C-alpha cells in the first residue's frame, strides 16, 4: 500500500469484473426404446455420481374426481413391495449400495429418483425397474401410508404456514378445480382410497410410453441406452392416456379471509390469484417482472416489508409453474400488529408494478441476476436431472437451456410493464391470513376496504 496522505487503511474502490468465461448447459442426447419409453442422457464426469429420474405422466392432475391423493399414494407405494421383495427389503437393497430412492407425485408427473455412485448404478436401476414394472401394493402398506398421510394432514393444520398455503389454494380456485385441494388429497378423499383404486391408477398411467428416464452424471449415452434396453426394453404396456384435463376457471373477484388462530404472535399472509400455465408465451417477461416485484431478496416487496419496515423476516412472490395455470402467490409472515399495514404495502407494490414502468437499473438487477446465476443452478447431477425432467414435463424446445440466458437478457422495461398489466389482477386478489382475528380483522378491513371473512382451520365460517 502507498503511504501518502491517504490513510493506509482507506478502503479500496469497488473492483470491475474480468472477462466472463463461456458456459454451456450440459450436452444431452435422447433415445426412444421401441415400446415408447424415452431416455434423456447428460454425461457429466466431474464426480463418480449419477442421478437417475424416472418421470411418469402420472401426477395428481390425472386423478379422477373423488380420488384426490391417489397419484401421491401410488407413487409412494411403488417402494413398498415389488418383484418378491417387501418394502423393508427393497429399502435395504437400495441403502446397502449407498443410495436412497425417493418416489413421489406432484401435479403433473410422478418421479422415482436417486443419486448413486456410478459403479452402483446398474444395481440401483435394476431395483428401479422392479418397482416401476412390478409393484405389489400390499394391503397393509396401503393402509399404513394412507394413515401416514392422514397424520400429515393433521400436522399441517397445526402449522400456520402450511395451513395458510392450503387455505390459499382453496380460496383461489373454484371448489371443483383439482388445484383447490392439496396434491396429496384431503382427509376425506384419502380415507376413501383403497388398494383397488391405487392399482387401477397405476395400471392406467404407468406405461412405458408415458415414462422418461433421465440420466445425469458419470455415464455415457451408450451405457445408459444398453442398460435401459436390457431393463426396460421388454416392458409392454397399453396406450398412453391422452392429455390431462385443464383446470376450471377461477373466481374473478377479490376476497379477504382470516383463518383464526387465537393468540398467534405472527400472521401468515398469502395474497394472489390464478397465474399462468408454464408454456405461456409471456413466460420470460413474467419471470423478470416477478423477480422485481418479489422474486429476489432485493425485490420491491422484500426491501419494503423487511428492510424498510422490519415487519417480517422475509416476503416473496412467485408464479408456480404447472402445465395448467398454477397460482401466483405473495407470501410472508408478519408480526400480528402490523398485518394491516403490511398488506397495504403489498397491495401498493402490486399497483406500482402495473402503473409505472420500472427503471433500467431495476430491470438489469433482475436480468443480470437470472442470466449470471444460470451456471450456478446446475452444479449438481440432481439439479441437471431436474432441469431435463422439466423439459420433458413441459415439452420445452431442445435448445431451451441454450437460449435461456439470451431470452432473459432480451426482456425490456416495456415488456415488464406489459406483463404486470396483463398478469397481475388487483381486482381478483384473494387475501388469506392465518392469525389472531381479534387483532387483525379490523386493520385488514381498513387496508383492503373490503369484507373480512373469518373461518376456522376447516374453512368453515365462524363469527368474526
Amino acid at each position, binding site marked *: 500500500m502507498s503511504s501518502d496522505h491517504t490513510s493506509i487503511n482507506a478502503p479500496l474502490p*469497488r473492483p470491475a469484473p474480468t472477462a466472463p468465461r463461456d458456459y454451456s448447459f450440459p450436452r444431452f442426447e435422447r433415445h426412444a426404446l421401441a415400446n415408447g419409453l424415452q431416455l434423456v442422457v447428460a454425461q457429466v464426469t466431474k464426480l463418480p*455420481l449419477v442421478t437417475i429420474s424416472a418421470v411418469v405422466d402420472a401426477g395428481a392432475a390425472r386423478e379422477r374426481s373423488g380420488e384426490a391423493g391417489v397419484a401421491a399414494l401410488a407413487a409412494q407405494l411403488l417402494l413398498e413391495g415389488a418383484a418378491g421383495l417387501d418394502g423393508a427389503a427393497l429399502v435395504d437393497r437400495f*441403502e446397502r449400495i449407498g443410495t436412497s430412492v425417493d418416489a413421489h407425485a406432484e401435479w403433473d408427473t410422478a418421479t422415482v429418483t436417486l443419486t448413486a455412485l456410478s459403479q452402483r448404478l446398474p444395481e440401483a436401476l435394476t431395483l428401479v425397474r422392479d418397482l416401476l414394472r412390478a409393484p405389489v401394493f400390499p394391503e397393509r402398506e396401503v393402509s399404513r401410508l394412507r394413515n401416514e398421510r*392422514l397424520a400429515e394432514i393433521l400436522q399441517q393444520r397445526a402449522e400456520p404456514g402450511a395451513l395458510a398455503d392450503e387455505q390459499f389454494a382453496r380460496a383461489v380456485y373454484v371448489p371443483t378445480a383439482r388445484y383447490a385441494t392439496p396434491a396429496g388429497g384431503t382427509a376425506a378423499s384419502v380415507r376413501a382410497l383403497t388398494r383397488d383404486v391405487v392399482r387401477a391408477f397405476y395400471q392406467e398411467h404407468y406405461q412405458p410410453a408415458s415414462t422418461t428416464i433421465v440420466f445425469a452424471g458419470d455415464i455415457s449415452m451408450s451405457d445408459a441406452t444398453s442398460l435401459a434396453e436390457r431393463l426396460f426394453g421388454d416392458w409392454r404396456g397399453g396406450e398412453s392416456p391422452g392429455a390431462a384435463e385443464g383446470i376450471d376457471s377461477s373466481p374473478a373477484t377479490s376476497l379477504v379471509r382470516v383463518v383464526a388462530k387465537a393468540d398467534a404472535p405472527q400472521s401468515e399472509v398469502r395474497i394472489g390469484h390464478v397465474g399462468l400455465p408454464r408454456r405461456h408465451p409471456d413466460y420470460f417477461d413474467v419471470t423478470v417482472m416477478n423477480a422485481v416485484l418479489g422474486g429476489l431478496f432485493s425485490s420491491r416487496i422484500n426491501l419494503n416489508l423487511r428492510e424498510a419496515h422490519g*415487519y417480517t423476516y422475509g416476503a416473496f412472490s412467485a408464479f408456480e409453474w404447472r402445465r395448467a395455470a398454477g397460482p401466483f402467490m405473495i407470501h410472508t409472515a408478519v408480526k400480528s400488529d402490523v398485518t394491516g399495514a403490511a398488506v397495504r404495502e403489498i397491495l401498493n407494490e402490486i399497483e406500482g408494478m402495473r402503473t409505472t414502468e420500472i427503471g433500467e437499473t431495476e430491470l438489469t438487477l433482475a436480468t*443480470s441476476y437470472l442470466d449470471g446465476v444460470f451456471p450456478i443452478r446446475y452444479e449438481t447431477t440432481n439439479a441437471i436431472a431436474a432441469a431435463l425432467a422439466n423439459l420433458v414435463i413441459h415439452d420445452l424446445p431442445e435448445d431451451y437451456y441454450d437460449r435461456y440466458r439470451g431470452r432473459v437478457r432480451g426482456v425490456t422495461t416495456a415488456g415488464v410493464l406489459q406483463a404486470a398489466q396483463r398478469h397481475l389482477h388487483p381486482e381478483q386478489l384473494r387475501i388469506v391470513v392465518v392469525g389472531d382475528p381479534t387483532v387483525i380483522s379490523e386493520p385488514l378491513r381498513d387496508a383492503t376496504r373490503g369484507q373480512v371473512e373469518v373461518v376456522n382451520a376447516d374453512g368453515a365460517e365462524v363469527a368474526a
Partner: protein
Amino acid sequence: MQIPIETFTLPNGLFVTLSEDHTAPIVAVNLWYHVGSANERSGRTGFAHLFEHMLFQGSASVGANEHFELVQRAGGTLNGSTWLDRTNYFETVPSNQLELALWLEANRMGYLLPAMTQQKLDTQRDVVQNERRWSMDNQPYGTWWERLPALAFPSSHPFHHSLIGSMADLDAASLDDISQFFATYYTPDNAVLSIAGDFERDVAHQLIERHFASIPRGAGKPALPDMTLPPTLGRSLREVVPDDVVLSRLFLACRSPAFGSDEYYAASVCGAILGLRKGSRLHRVLVRDRQIAADAQAFTYDLTKGSDLLVLDVTARPQTTTDQLESAVHDMLDDVHQHGVTADEVSRAIALIETDLVISLQSAGDRADKLSLFATYFGDPSLVNVQADKYRAVTAERVNAFARARLGRDNRASLLYVPKEGSESMHETELAEAGAR
C-alpha cells in the same frame, strides 16, 4: 474422492484455503469467523446472530441493502448463518466476479463500523424478532431449538443458552455492543477464508493480499470458560412441553464424543444405524413395523468442544400415547446399549454416508464451506479428504463400545412435546381415523 487444497496465512493471521476446479465458470468465497452464540456475554443472548444480520447492512464503501444487490447483480447467490461456535458468510459468483466477492468481504471485515446506525440496528432487531416468531414461537415444536441445548448442557455452559436469543436481550442490544463485538471477534486472525472453484492460483493470491493484508490483527478474544463435560449426563432428564401441536414428538439427546475425535465417527455411524433414512432401526421398527410413529430420525449436532449431542427425533402417530412413544424409544436405545449393532448395519450406514460425502463435494459453495469448517475447528482443511476413510475404519466393535459408554439411561435428556389442553387443532374423529391400523 480427493480435492486439491492449498493453504497459507497472511501476516495479520487470516488463514486462507484454496481449492481449484475449472469444470464450470463458478467460484465460491466462504468466510468463517470463529465466534458464535457461545461467545455471548450474559444479558445478550442472540447477539451473535443479530450481528450477522448487521453485516448485510453495508460498510464504508457499501450502502445499506447494497451488499445483496451487488452480488445478485453479479449473478451470484449469498447468505450467512450463525451457529453455537461459528458464524459464516458466503457467496457463489460467476468466476469473473471473484474480486467483487473478496472486496465485499474485506470491506465489511475492515470497515464495518462507519456504516452502523441506530436505525439499521432497530430495523434488524425487528427482523430478527420476526425470524424468532416465524421459526420458533409460531411454529409447532419450534422451541426445541432452544429447549434441547438448555436441557442437555448445564446452565453455566456456553452451549446452554438460546442462539436466536430472548426478546428482552435482543431489545437490550446497542450500537456499543456492535462496536465491541466487531473489534473483538471480526478480525482476520479469528477468521478463515476459503475459495473453491474456477480461479487461477496466482491471481487469487494477489487478490487476497490486496484486499485483506492491510486489515489489522485483533487484540485477541476472551477465552471461553472451560467447556469440558463428563461423558454422560449422570442421570436421565425429562421435560414435558405442552404446545399447539396435534402429534406428540420426542427429542431425546445423549451426550456424545466431540466432532472430529476418533470416537465421533463411531457415534455418527451409530446415529445413522438408529435414524438415517428408512432402513434405519427407528424408522423400520417404529414407523413401518409397529406403526406408532409418523416419522423418526437421528442426527448429531457436530459440536467440537466439550460434548457433542446425538439426538433422536420421533413424532408419534395420532393414537400413540406418550408413554408408548417414550418407552418404545427408550427400549430401542436400551437394546443398542446392551446388545450392540451388527456388522451388516454398520456397512449399510457407511455406504449411505460415503455417497453423501461425495454428493456434498459437488457444488463450489459446499466445498468452500467444508474447507472453512475443517480449517476453523482443526486448523487443517485437508481433513475434508480423509472423512470417508475415517468412516470406513469404523467397525461394529467401535460402535458398540460407544453405545455401551454413552447410550445408557444415565445419559438421556428427553424433551417431550404434547398437545396442550383444548388445542383447537384437535378433531377427535380424524385423530381416530389417522390412528387406525
